[in-house]
């Protein structure tokens, strides 16, 4: 079953009639910005789905529409098989917004208790769940009794994640869950997301940290300038075969190195070691055979698949140029 399904979802912002920009009045007669254009997404139950894209691509707008913070200009969306706005559905969703800033006058435990009440949880259920969550998200022992204004950015992100898990949701929506975290914090969030999947939950999150997305996502969608550029699983998007081969030799003959120069895309020399990047497996095989026969030592051979980052940059930077040339041709 589709957990999230959007059909031609669009959002056009109309600007305020009058605006102050750089200290000057600016009239915005009929000025509009398209933040999202005819988005069709499909997120299946139990998967980790990453929504990727550069800043201003429409990731947050998509999530905000799904969470009913914004209303779509056109198109429709269904969550857990029901139209947006259904309270029974909302009771099964957990949401962490980007850069969360919570009520700083509340203590950690008070804050989670308040949100638990909004989910309609009983006092007993709230107390039990809150204790569990403080441990789950890895907050220190003093966190429940510390006012949120005393929380560090990482702690806020963790308690934000805790509030999104209060109701033991079927679907967890996270907007940039790793922004502002150090590498340790990022890894912990990654582990929590993976453990959510193991518990059978669907995780839908936006990110621009592509290496992390590549590690944990079952499927991704790439947005750019409000449009869907690509959608699919990693094998679909990146291909299953290797794109290039990294070969490292030590003690490689200079004459041999010169002779293979045309074959290699890149050659890096460091002390006695030489790294060559070759595009085809046949070239790599031939090179290795020849080098070994001349007494060089093979240190490593690594077939390399295209990374999500390379794919992403290619897709995102290709589109506007392509559109421009298409526009010029027309």
């Amino acid at each position, binding site marked *: 079953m589709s957990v999230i399904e959007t059909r031609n979802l669009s959002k056009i912002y109309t600007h305020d009639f009058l605006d102050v920009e750089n200290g000057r009045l600016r009239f915005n007669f009929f000025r509009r910005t398209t933040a999202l254009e005819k988005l069709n997404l499909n997120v299946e139950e139990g998967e980790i789905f990453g929504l990727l894209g550069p800043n201003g691509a429409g990731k947050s707008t998509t999530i905000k529409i799904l969470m009913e913070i914004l209303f779509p200009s056109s198109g429709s969306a269904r969550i857990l098989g029901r139209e947006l706005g259904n309270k029974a559905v909302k009771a099964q969703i957990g949401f962490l917004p980007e850069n969360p*800033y919570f009520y700083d006058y509340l203590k950690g435990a008070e804050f989670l208790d308040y949100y638990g009440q*909004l989910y*309609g949880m009983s006092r007993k259920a709230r107390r039990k769940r809150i204790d569990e969550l403080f441990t789950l998200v890895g907050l220190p022992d003093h966190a429940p009794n510390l006012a949120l204004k005393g929380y560090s950015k990482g702690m806020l992100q963790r308690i934000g994640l805790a509030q999104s898990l209060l109701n033991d949701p079927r679907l967890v929506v996270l907007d940039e869950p790793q922004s502002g975290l150090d590498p340790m914090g990022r890894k912990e969030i990654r582990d929590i997301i993976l453990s959510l999947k193991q518990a059978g939950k669907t995780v839908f999150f936006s990110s621009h940290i592509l290496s992390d997305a590549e590690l944990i996502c079952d499927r991704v969608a790439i947005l750019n300038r409000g449009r869907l550029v690509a959608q699919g699983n990693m094998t679909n998007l990146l291909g299953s075969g290797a794109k290039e081969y990294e070969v490292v030799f030590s003690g490689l003959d200079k004459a041999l190195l010169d002779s293979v120069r045309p074959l290699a895309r890149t050659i890096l020399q460091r002390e006695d070691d030489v790294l060559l990047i070759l595009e085809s497996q046949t070239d790599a095989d031939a090179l290795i055979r020849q080098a070994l026969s001349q007494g060089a030592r093979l240190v490593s051979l690594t077939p390399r698949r295209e990374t999500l980052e390379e794919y992403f940059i290619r897709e995102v930077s290709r589109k506007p140029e392509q559109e421009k040339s298409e526009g010029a041709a027309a």
Partner: protein
Amino acid sequence: MGKVIAIALNTFKEAVRNKVLYFLLIFAILIMAFSAVISDLSISSPEKLIKDLGLASIDFFGFLIAVFVGVYLVYNELDRKTIYTIVSKPIDRTQFILGKFFGLLFTIYVNIAIMTFVFFAVLYFRESTAYEVMIKHLYSETSPGHFVMVQSEWVYYLKTIFLSMGKSLGTMFGVYTTVLTAGLMKVVLMSALSLAIITSFAIFYSTFSSPTLSAVFTSLTFIIGSLCEDIVRYADKLAEKAGGISHLAGAEAFKYWFAIVAVHIVPNLSYFDRRMNAVYGAPDIAAPQLFPPLLDWQTIVYGIGYTAAIVCLASLIFRNRNFK
């Protein structure tokens, strides 16, 4: 309902952790204490000055709390984006507005209760420390022309403070009343009702405009609403001077219609002002028909109805809002 209460309590928590609230409260209490001191300057009736100033302070500071705390309540949720996590929960946006409204109203009422407590205590204290009364309690006439001090001045003051506080609580809960405070609690209740209207306006304006604009709009509503009777009288005078509404022209006509329209779109808060009656309107000195009664059902229904309508309007706007 439980969710509305949860939001209201959180709103109350936010408000009581706001320093502005304490500043206003301390200032109101200082004015009341000060009124007891300057009341000595009044030759005829010092307690009337205390009553007038005290009741006016309760009303005015209640209004200031509604404005300074109220206009930020919704704005802060949008500005800090806490609203994102709220609307994604299984609650209705109307529940959110209701929670904010009742939370703010509760904050204002707690403050009114504190101010009223101080106000009554000041009145009772002032009554018991009037020169003649004190003389009677401090000295005893042992033989004609001979007086002996029976207790220390400071002990008497201390006793009076506690006694006044007790009497004040009694008056607030309607179990103790003297001629001095007769009817005053009803005036406070009517003030509280008019503040419910102002609170609903503060929330209403803040659902669609910035705190500064909301504060200006709320203040204008309060000022025009409080002066309704005077504005109507002014408009009538304009018409009278011109010899009828149809004879009004130019600027005069504009002034007339502006006044009439203004009076009809804002709530008439002068209905709720029963100060004159309670302070000056003792039945033996003035004809009763000159003053409205202290409490009447029409005004109570008007107040609650108006408040409900404005809260509905606020929630209607809020339901359809995009939060960028």
